[in-house]
């Protein structure tokens, strides 16, 4: 627990979370708590439930039983407004193929109620410049689509970042940018949960590693505190 401040409400709280797809249990009883400012790496084999865990936290998948609280609210209930404070970078980029990159970003940022003047800087950060902004999203490569989705995420400035295999399809330079962006977000007090098969890319940033298997959390350990996020007042991890 953080010694200086009163105990912060967890950014993420799951208790006995069961989520179903048809008759198949995506999550079979997940217990997890993440304090604000933590950077958590979620590991696990294919089909372990990592993606489902993040989708539950983003409010896309309702729970069949158990509890989920994100930033103090139920993400499955749109009226709580917590979804505007969550950013999910998933397998899909949520782009309309007929609209240009700039139009897509403008819509995504305005829809989330964030100021549009954050778009320009965000685009520059992820290397979306010039003609690319006026290109219809349908003409982009898979990696470029990921960059657009990342730019939308940065421009939205969410308090909770949920990154699902964020490195997939990105080239070396974009991976470098992603690392910096995550570190900056954590330094600014955002909570980051990263599901990844490439722990070596995330490990330098993560304060904690959680292993998921069979739709449950099976291991949870603190990782050595990275230099880049030191001094941000992140709560200790037992």
């Amino acid at each position: 627990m953080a010694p200086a401040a009163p105990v912060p409400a967890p950014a993420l709280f799951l208790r006995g979370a069961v989520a179903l797809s048809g008759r198949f249990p995506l999550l079979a009883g997940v217990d997890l708590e993440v304090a604000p400012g933590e950077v958590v790496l979620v590991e696990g084999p294919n089909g372990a439930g990592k993606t489902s865990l993040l989708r539950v936290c983003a409010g896309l998948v309702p729970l069949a039983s158990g509890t989920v609280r994100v930033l103090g609210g139920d993400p499955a209930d749109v009226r709580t407004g917590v979804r505007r404070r969550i950013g999910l970078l998933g397998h899909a980029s949520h782009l309309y193929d007929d609209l240009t990159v700039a139009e897509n970003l403008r819509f995504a940022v305005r829809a989330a109620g964030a100021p549009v003047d954050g778009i320009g800087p965000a685009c520059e950060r992820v290397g979306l410049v010039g003609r690319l902004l006026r290109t219809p999203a349908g003409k982009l490569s898979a990696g470029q689509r990921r960059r657009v989705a990342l730019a939308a995420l940065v421009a939205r400035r969410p308090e909770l970042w949920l990154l699902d295999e964020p490195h997939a399809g990105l080239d070396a330079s974009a991976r470098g940018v992603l690392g910096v962006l995550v570190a900056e977000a954590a330094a600014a007090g955002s909570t980051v949960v990263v599901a990844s098969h490439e722990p070596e890319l995330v490990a330098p940033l993560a304060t904690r590693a959680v292993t998921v298997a069979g739709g449950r959390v099976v291991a949870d350990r603190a990782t050595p505190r990275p230099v880049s996020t030191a001094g941000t007042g992140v709560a200790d991890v037992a």
Partner: protein
Amino acid sequence: MWRDALLVGGKDLRIEARSRVALAQIAPFGMIVLVLFAFALGPDQSPLVHAAPGLFWVAVLFSTVLAVQRSVAVEAGDATRDGLRLAGLDPAGIFLGKAAAVGAQLLVLQAVLAAGVLLLFGARVVHPWLLLGTCLAGAVGLAASGTLYGALSAGVRLRETLLPFLLLPVVAPVLLAGTRLWQSSLAGGAPDAGASWMRLLLVFDAVYVALGVVVFGPLTEAA
């Protein structure tokens, strides 16, 4: 709610402006339906004039199914429906925005089809305002009920075949009211009971718009 509706409706119309699906595919389809009806009824002008209002509304109903399917398909690629939910948009706003976009496209389709009916079938308009009002009220009802059924069928496998089956019987009153009101506004039709048909159309509009605003959230969330 209104802000989200404007945002979503504007987005859908912008997509239509870029892709021209309604104008380049659905409108010609509606015209083909009209021409096929003309082939089926023979070259004589008089049965065509008599049937014009009904043929117009049948063509509009078929076009509505296509427009709704397009509206659903826009949110199906690259999981953009999830994108709308992740952004935390008000579901009532999403409903109104998408319905307004479908309604606007239907008005354009109606204009094209009306021109076709008047030119090809030689119908003459006596009460243009009644004609316009009927088109407007019909578009609202079809867009609202269509968007509602589109959302209902969105996550369902086989939605392409299911949607017309579910939607068309429900919008039958629009066909009946629209046809009767058009008969009243075209030359040769008896101007009977126009007010009660218009009331019926408006009740249909009000019921499905209200239903959409109230239930679109529970309908699309937790899918």
